[in-house]
């Protein structure tokens, strides 16, 4: 139940409380009331339709790079 997924902000809607995010090509409208200063291009952790934190892109990229390398090495 505490599952979360990372998604990229592609559009912020008018009232600033909602945004459209892209998760693996799927576009979804989510609530961003809990996030300070959200901007297009940010990565957010989404849970139950609500963004619960901004993901530190640099840290995330490093982890993603490691995963990518492991995947490539295994394929």
């Amino acid at each position, binding site marked *: 139940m505490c599952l979360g997924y990372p998604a990229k902000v592609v559009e912020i809607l008018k009232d600033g409380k909602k945004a459209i995010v892209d998760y693996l090509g799927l576009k979804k409208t989510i609530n961003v009331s809990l996030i300070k200063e959200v901007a297009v291009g940010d990565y957010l952790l989404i849970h139950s*339709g609500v963004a619960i934190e901004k993901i530190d892109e640099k840290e995330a990229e490093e982890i993603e790079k490691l995963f990518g390398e492991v995947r490539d090495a295994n394929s």
Partner: protein
Amino acid sequence: MQTLEKVNTIINTIKNNIEKIGRQLRIIEVCGTHTVSIYRNGFHTLFKGYIDFISGPGCPVCVTHEGYIDNLIELAKMNHTIYTFGDLLKVPGKSMSLAEAKAKGAKIKIMYSPVDAVENIAEDEEAIIAAVGFETTVPAFALSLEKVLEKDLKNVKFACELKTIDQPLKILLKDHIKVDGLILPGHVATILGVDGFKFVEEFGIPSVISGFEKYDILLSLLSLTQSILDNDFTVKNEYKRVVKKEGNTVAIRYIERFFERTDAYFRGLGLIEGGGLRLKSEYSAFSIQLEYDYDSLSNSACRCADVLTGKLKPFECPLFERVCTPQTPKGACMVSQEGSCNAYFRFGKWK
């Protein structure tokens, strides 16, 4: 290949650390999503003889009492519409689950998000939102109540069975279980921050806040074994890309605005003082008070309680795999995808 070597180095360092400690470690993961990641990625076999993984009571579905389900079904019979996360559907009540009640015509709707649910509730619907979850999910319920207030909806109520992580963890560590280290729930920590888990340090047990990918788990085990070697009881954070020291302060303020502590029943641990959250009295008009007998779990052969307190492995339960499967769950630990019995059933190589 460089990275594979890196991964192997981490695995070997973890094993070397454990050899230096000189015994098999008992490590408890509190969150069900960690349980799944550990079993799906085969860490229980990779570290066999080195680490005995124990699943704690951090899955809100698994610790939900069947009486809560019975109450929701009763309310559905009284012409209310129940909005629930899909996870709860198969949890057995005394006579049936929400899924069975739905099949018999009860008005039970699955919600993806309580905030979205409130937007779509019809005016003539007497809606009850099944509010189940730990601190990760509580802000979503707070936002949905805010929306109810904004829209001045009179036909929406919350059936709160919300849980907090600190009280059960304190009781588990104090009275129920002896472990060498803790893997702390990354998404509860996203809300509460590293600071929200500082209380663990008082128990003199090393701990680490972890993400959920396989690399996260490995780095967390590395950190944890190092802390055990060093007798270092500081809460470590290996999920820095998401978890901040102070947590999500906006979310915490939302929780504090709408909710207050209450006693709560945890399957496996019993009634825990301050273990739950209810709506503050000024919002009582939006709350449905549920009452049920905490001590009566109808299926006495179900050993969920012992599984949740690390006394028993899922396969040691007499019902496991014989009559209790993810298709026909007898206890909540088999229902949820994040339950330890369910994870063992799907990924465990216990045979």
